[in-house]
């Protein structure tokens, strides 16, 4: 089930809110049970029997956590950690990477059977989330969760289940047992949800139509203008799509009393790639930082080992996003840029005027999304070539103009929405005395309800509604 669906908006969400809030707050365990049951139903609705895989993953993490927390028996704790890591990553490897590995081996001339495996929705997210729990318990950063239902609720909690943000156990462990659902939290959450929903419906879907239209063509035929339009559209789509989901997840979390950490912080205003990765998919980059980079030695080691650590993290980041060479190359591209900024041109970059630094960063990011979006390396190469004039030009037929004119309101909105306009307006209004503060209080709420109605309208009248990040 996706948030931007009528099943969710008119069926699942109202039903869950009704049942959840009918249970008195003092029966926390029962409220949690309602939430867990709803979360499993939410997953089952889209994934069917694969919900059993998630239950298996939860069981592995629960048992792993019980063992990993035996601090007075280090070997048992180590065995528990190893069990959870091997089982979790083993499931991920089989469901996500077995086919890729087999195809790669076949490509090298060895005949091996290619397994036909259905990728469970959100497996990368719930696997990493479960692992963070066991590792935190092993490190002593978090206590053992003895109640399996609470462990299950942490992993399966529907707002962040299928597309993040990757919530750390330490972030929500207190709230699972003791949280307070308040009117102001609910209102803030619902407001955030409405903004996220409209971001998805208005911006991400429109940009997705453009990107799909352009990337669906033979890349070598694209004229440069069209290739750039497609790349820009995808650049906007992936940001609005993914950050919209995070907005909705964080907002829904609020409505049930949970506080998830932010996942995006206006990444497209970054003036370096390093800054970009501090602002983009924060929950994933901090996961890799805390569970891979720092344990490997981080930057408190020789330069050669630092390079090795960064390379490892970015190979894994690429692979996490997808089992394909394009994703690996995408990870390596950022690895090179980050190493360059760290050791080569970082100081020089800092001397340049901000607009130039921003333009250089965005160029690197846009090119990276071409790698990310391309079906294979051949298409990626041809597409990048078309962007820089290496094209047959057979498709010089006005498509770029069409995509600009057809979606002109969405292009303008996208150009505004990637900037922190909301913050600027909020600060500006709040500095305008009582009237400004009243406006700052009411305007977002009125706008949120308007956007809810608009999103409903777009859901009813449109059918183009895929979520990008479900494939991860």
């Amino acid at each position: 089930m996706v948030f931007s669906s009528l099943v969710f908006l008119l069926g699942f969400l109202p039903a869950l809110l009704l049942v959840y809030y009918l249970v008195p707050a003092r029966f926390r365990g029962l409220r949690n049970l309602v939430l867990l049951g709803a979360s499993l139903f939410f997953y089952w609705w889209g994934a069917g029997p694969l919900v059993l895989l998630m239950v298996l993953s939860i069981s592995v993490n629960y048992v792993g956590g019980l063992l990993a927390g035996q601090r007075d028996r280090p070997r048992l704790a180590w065995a528990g950690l190893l069990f959870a890591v091997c089982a979790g990553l083993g499931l991920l490897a089989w469901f996500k990477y077995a086919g890729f590995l087999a195809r790669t081996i076949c490509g090298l001339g060895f005949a091996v059977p290619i397994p036909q495996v259905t990728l469970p929705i959100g497996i990368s997210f719930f696997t990493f989330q479960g692992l963070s729990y066991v590792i935190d318990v092993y490190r002593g950063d978090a206590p053992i969760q003895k109640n399996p239902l609470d462990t299950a609720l942490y992993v399966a909690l529907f707002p962040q289940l299928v597309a993040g943000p990757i919530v750390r156990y330490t972030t929500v462990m207190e709230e699972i047992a003791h949280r307070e659902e308040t009117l102001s939290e609910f209102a803030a959450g619902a407001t955030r949800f409405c903004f996220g929903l409209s971001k998805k419906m208005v911006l991400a879907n429109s940009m997705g139509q453009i990107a799909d239209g352009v990337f669906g063509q033979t890349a070598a035929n694209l004229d440069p203008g069209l290739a750039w339009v497609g790349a820009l559209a995808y650049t906007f789509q992936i940001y609005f799509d993914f950050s919209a989901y995070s907005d909705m997840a964080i907002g829904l979390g609020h409505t049930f009393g949970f506080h998830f950490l932010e996942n995006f912080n206006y990444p497209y205003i970054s003036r370096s790639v390093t800054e970009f990765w501090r602002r983009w998919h924060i929950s994933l980059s901090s996961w890799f930082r805390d569970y891979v980079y720092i344990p490997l030695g981080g930057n408190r080691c020789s330069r050669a080992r630092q390079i090795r650590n960064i390379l490892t993290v970015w190979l894994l980041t690429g692979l996490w996003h997808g089992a394909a060479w394009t994703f690996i190359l995408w990870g390596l591209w950022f690895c090179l840029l980050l190493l360059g900024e760290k050791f080569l041109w970082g100081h020089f970059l800092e001397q340049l005027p901000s607009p130039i630094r921003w333009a250089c960063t965005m160029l690197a990011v846009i090119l990276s999304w071409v790698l990310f979006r391309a079906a294979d390396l051949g298409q990626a190469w041809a597409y990048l070539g078309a962007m820089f004039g290496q094209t047959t030009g057979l498709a010089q037929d006005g498509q770029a103009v069409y995509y600009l004119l057809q979606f002109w309101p969405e292009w303008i909105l996208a150009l505004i929405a990637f900037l922190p306009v909301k913050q600027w307006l909020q600060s500006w209004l709040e500095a305008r005395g009582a009237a400004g503060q009243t406006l700052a209080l009411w305007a977002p709420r009125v706008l949120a309800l308007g956007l809810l109605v608009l999103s409903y309208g777009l859901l009813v009248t449109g059918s183009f509604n895929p979520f990008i990040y479900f494939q991860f």
Partner: protein
Amino acid sequence: MKKSRWADWFLTAGFLGFLALALAVTLIRPKSGWSYYENRNLAHPAELSVETLLDGTFPASVEPVLQDHAAGRNTLMKLSVWVDLHLFHRPVVNQVVPADGMLLGWNPYETPDPAGITAQAEHMAEELAHLRDVVEEYGGHFCYAAVPGQYAYYPDAYPDFLNNREAYTALEVPALTHAMAERGMDLLDMGPVLDTAGNPREYYSMADYHYQFGGAYLTYRAILERLSAELGTELTILDGNSLAVETLPNPYLGSRGRKLFGLEDCGEHLTIGLPRAPVPFTRTDNGTETAPTVYALPATGTEGVLYSLYMGGDVGETVIETNRPDLPSILIYGDSFTNPVECLAYYSFDEMRSIDLRHYREMPLADYIRLHQPDIVVGIRDYEALLSTDYNGNLFQLQP
């Protein structure tokens, strides 16, 4: 603090109230199975059973049902079209291009492949030659006509950045003409005929893919003149003296206008032609005798009319008998472009059969022809479908 609480109540009540209201109205509003403006059946849910729950069929069927039956759907869709047309002025709205006072169809971008088109034309010509052989086997005569669709009639009305398929048409029609000529067949291409007539605007619809009565009449005339010449007999052709032409006052909702929920009106009306000296006839549709008429005339002068005015729309099999055995019989097959032609053509024949293979499933066309052995077989297809082997291009197989 108090203000903030009011604002929170407002948001919470608005949020929950909207969801509850939308759900309630969706559940209680009268259900319809058909969407008039979209011209399609609305979705219905899969049967609820353990099996459909487990295999995911039922969950997957719910979202389309909710979308199709959601509260305020028609109003919202109309509003959406209105906004796109009048506020955003998008060049394409619901796959319709409002341009130059017309409503044109949007064509996906394409890079025509000359070799592929030639191969398709060769294949289609081969199929048509086989059909011609079937007809000639029992002494019949075969004629094949190609008519431009709206995009080919008004190519210059498209903005430069949209595809008017000129490049495709320029390859397709000559390829088929050549391939048919190689097999001893002469394609009757209405494109040059309409060019000679000066391509008057009133010959083709401004809000529909099809021609208007003028274009249909010219096609009818060209076909009958061609047949008369090839058969060496003078077939009766209705003309200005023998045909009473009347333009209906009713508003015409073409398929493009329909896609725009009737919010754009090109001011078009449909025209009919009635013989001044009518001949009595009987009509049978799909084996059932129906009213002896070729026009589905509206009850009043204000009621809207559709292209289905002609022959009552698309029917699998229609047989019109005029009971004049001295005249030849004719079979006309093809898509909706045949309908207004048939409204006139029956007049010149003892029996007119009409087959639309999009709806006729009893037997393949070739078998139908062998069974009924009409003296003349005429195929009419538009440029868009000219090389397609689907339905009215599938001549020897039973339709799927």
